[in-house]
Each structure stands twice: as structure tokens, then as C-alpha cells.
């Protein structure tokens, strides 16, 4: 029993480590390298799934799925965070739990288990996503992509609202509550970023469409 837990902890640690690398990789994205970076990140994430999530899936049967959750949840949360971050950067939408579980269907052969991500790990992983989106928003403003910050802001707002309506009901509501607070902090940082961009823009071009100026600025560089 302890060996199984041991193996899950190790697999989870690897899932975390390599998922973090995918996230770091996606952060290197800018307007020039977008496609190549995303393709590479997609390949890397697929490898995390095949090489390491499979190791998790292989161990879990019946009630073990919940029994050992503490052992593998950190890895799965980080995987969700990475996958959802990548999906947002590619398609600007929220990766759903069904999307993820469909993508795990192919693990069945390798793990000989019908592995399904549970709702809690999904929600907790999605909760962490906001932190990465906050970093992305700030660096996209730095890179001159003001619109991107605005759309991140709207995305996070709606995500926060959806989660706030169910967060109280989540199993470990204390853990979720913590995440909600961090999420709100991140959201406020994104809003502050949008605020700064707006106020600075308004000074020079009251009412103007900011993109033009920003576009011009991009050419300068």
C-alpha cells in the first residue's frame, strides 16, 4: 500500500514538474513566435500525459481513485492548469472537464484503467490558472498587446463569477476558498493593469481607440 502511494507521489511530482515546464514554455510566447511556441507546448503536454499521467492512471482502481487522491492531486491540478493555460492561449476559451477526460480516453490502453479526472482536481487546477493569466496579462501589456489584457480580464471575471457560485459546495471548501482569495487578488492585478493602460491612453487620446497607438508603437520596436 505504501509502495503504491510512494509511486503515485513520484508520478505526481513528475507530472507537476513537467507541467510547470509547459507553463513556463507558454509564457515565452510573443506575437512573433506564437505558433511555434504553442505547437511545441502542445507536444510537450502530450508527452506529460503519455509518460507521466499514464503512471498515475495505472495505479488507480475502484476506491483507490479517492483513497490516494492526496497523493496525486498536486500533479493533476498542475496538469489541468497547464492544459487550460495552453487552451486559452490557443483558442481563448475555457478547457472543460469533458475535454480533458476525452483526451484521457487514449490512456486506457497504456494504463489498462479507465482513468477519469475528478471534479475537484479540475476546479482546483482551474483556480490556479488565474495566476498564470495574470502574469500573461502583465507581460502582454509590456509587449504592447493591450487588447489581450482586456480579453484576459473579461475571461477571468467570468471564470471567477462561475466559480464563486459553486466554491462553497466543493468538498474541501477551505482549500477552494483559499484559491478563490488568491484568484481575486490576481483578478485585481489584471484589472489594475487594464486601468493603467486605460488611464494613460485617455490622457493623450481621450476616447480614441487605443489599438492604433499601440500598433504604431509596435512598429517602433
Amino acid at each position, binding site marked *: 500500500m505504501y509502495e503504491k502511494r510512494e509511486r503515485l507521489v513520484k508520478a505526481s511530482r513528475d507530472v507537476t514538474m513537467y507541467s510547470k515546464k509547459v507553463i513556463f514554455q507558454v509564457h515565452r510566447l510573443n506575437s512573433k513566435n506564437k505558433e511555434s511556441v504553442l505547437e511545441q507546448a502542445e507536444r510537450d503536454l502530450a508527452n506529460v500525459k503519455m509518460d507521466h499521467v499514464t503512471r498515475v492512471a495505472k495505479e488507480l482502481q475502484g476506491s483507490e481513485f479517492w483513497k490516494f487522491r492526496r497523493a496525486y492531486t498536486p500533479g493533476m491540478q498542475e496538469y489541468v492548469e497547464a492544459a487550460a493555460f495552453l487552451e486559452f492561449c490557443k483558442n481563448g476559451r475555457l478547457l472543460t472537464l469533458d475535454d480533458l477526460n476525452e483526451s484521457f480516453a487514449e490512456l486506457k490502453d497504456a494504463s489498462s484503467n479507465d482513468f477519469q479526472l475528478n471534479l475537484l482536481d479540475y476546479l482546483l487546477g482551474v483556480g490556479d490558472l488565474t495566476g498564470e493569466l495574470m502574469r500573461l496579462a502583465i507581460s502582454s501589456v509590456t509587449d504592447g498587446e493591450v487588447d489581450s489584457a482586456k480579453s484576459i480580464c*473579461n475571461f477571468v*471575471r467570468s471564470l*471567477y*463569477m462561475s466559480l*464563486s*457560485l459553486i466554491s*462553497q459546495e466543493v468538498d474541501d471548501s477551505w482549500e477552494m476558498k483559499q484559491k478563490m482569495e488568491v484568484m481575486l487578488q490576481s483578478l*485585481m492585478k489584471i*484589472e*489594475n493593469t*487594464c*486601468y493603467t493602460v*486605460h*488611464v*494613460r491612453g*485617455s*490622457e493623450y487620446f*481621450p476616447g480614441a481607440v487605443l489599438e492604433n497607438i499601440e500598433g504604431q508603437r509596435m512598429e517602433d520596436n
Partner: protein
Amino acid sequence: MSVDRQFEEFRLQLEESGAVRERLRAIVSELDSATRLMQAQLLLIHHSRPSPEILSKIKAHTEGLRSIYGQLAEVLKSVPAQYYRYHDHWRNQTYTVVFLLAFIHWLETGGLLSHGDAAALLGLKDGEFGLDLEDYLVGLCNLSNELPRYVVNQVTTGDYDCAKRASVFLSDLYAAFRMLNLRNDLLRKRFDGMKYDLKKVEEVLYDVKIRGLLSDTTPTSAAES
């Protein structure tokens, strides 16, 4: 009275008050749901200019709140003079309720919802089941905490004068609190945080002022008017 009989009597008394708690818990859990829903709706206010529709939608819950507080009062009536024995049960939720009512009131009128008006909205009467003063004050601290975020978002949507309104309101509120001789407790700690809210709102006002974005007809301090 013998020791044993004494403890037997204690057991009965404690079970009785345990039953009171059980009933309070059930009612407060309803209060919890109601305020959570109101808070979620209030989030929309941050995303755009606060429309009268949104505000009335939130205000529509006041009726429900009044009924819930009525139930609490009913339970408390069975244990006279013990309001403060059970107070902790509904305290946290009441902070949020006061915050919500005072925020809506400020959005609609630009003024401060008074202690009496807050109690009246909830159908609470002094002497019986009233609105505890400290609960009301903590609720105002929650409002103060919310204003910086609100101002940032409103300025982003182009309502620059909002910064002035919030700054005047908040500095009056802060000065009023300052005169209270607060104990070294939660309320004191919450009030200590208020100066950061004020500072942040003042910085936003500074940002719009220095860029010439402020309209001319700005309100003066309510305290002076």
C-alpha cells in the same frame, strides 16, 4: 444540591441551548446562501457602469433577508436577554449583509447608510433583536475594502468622477471612525486597514486629476456641506 444532581441539571440546560444553536445554524445557512447570491450579482457592478436594473435585482433580496432575520429573532425570543450568547452564529453573515446594503445605498445616493436605516431595512428593532453596532461598523469596513477595486474598474470604463465621489466619501468615513476609541480587536484591525483603501482611492483620484480627466463639477466633502 448534590454534585451529581447539579451536573444532571447542567446537562439538561446545555442540551436546551444546544437545540437553540441547531435551529440558529439552519437559519443562518439560509442567510449564507442569500448573501452569497447577492455578492455574485454584485460582481457584475465591477464589470460595467452600475445600471439601475442590476441594483434593483440585488435589492429585491432585501425582502428575503428581512424574513430570515425575523426567524432568528423568533428563536431568540425563546431565550430572553441571551442575544449575545448566540451572536457569533450570525455575525459574519451580518457583516456581509451590512456591506451589501451600504454599498447599494452609496451607489444610489452617494451617501452613507445609517445604522438606523440599515436596521430598518432588515426589520430589526432595538431592544429586541437589533443590529449590533460593531457588526454595522465592520460592515462599513468591508465597504471601504471594496471601494478601491470599484473605483479602478469604473475609471477603466470611463467614469472618472467616480474617483472623486469615492475619495470624498471614504475620507469622511475614515475621519469619523478616527474619533472612535476602538478596542484592540477585530474592528480596530479592520479599521487599520481602511487607511490603505483610502490611500489607494486617493491615488486613483490623483491619476485622473493629473491627467486632466476630471470634470469640473466635483462634489465637496459631505462633512462640509
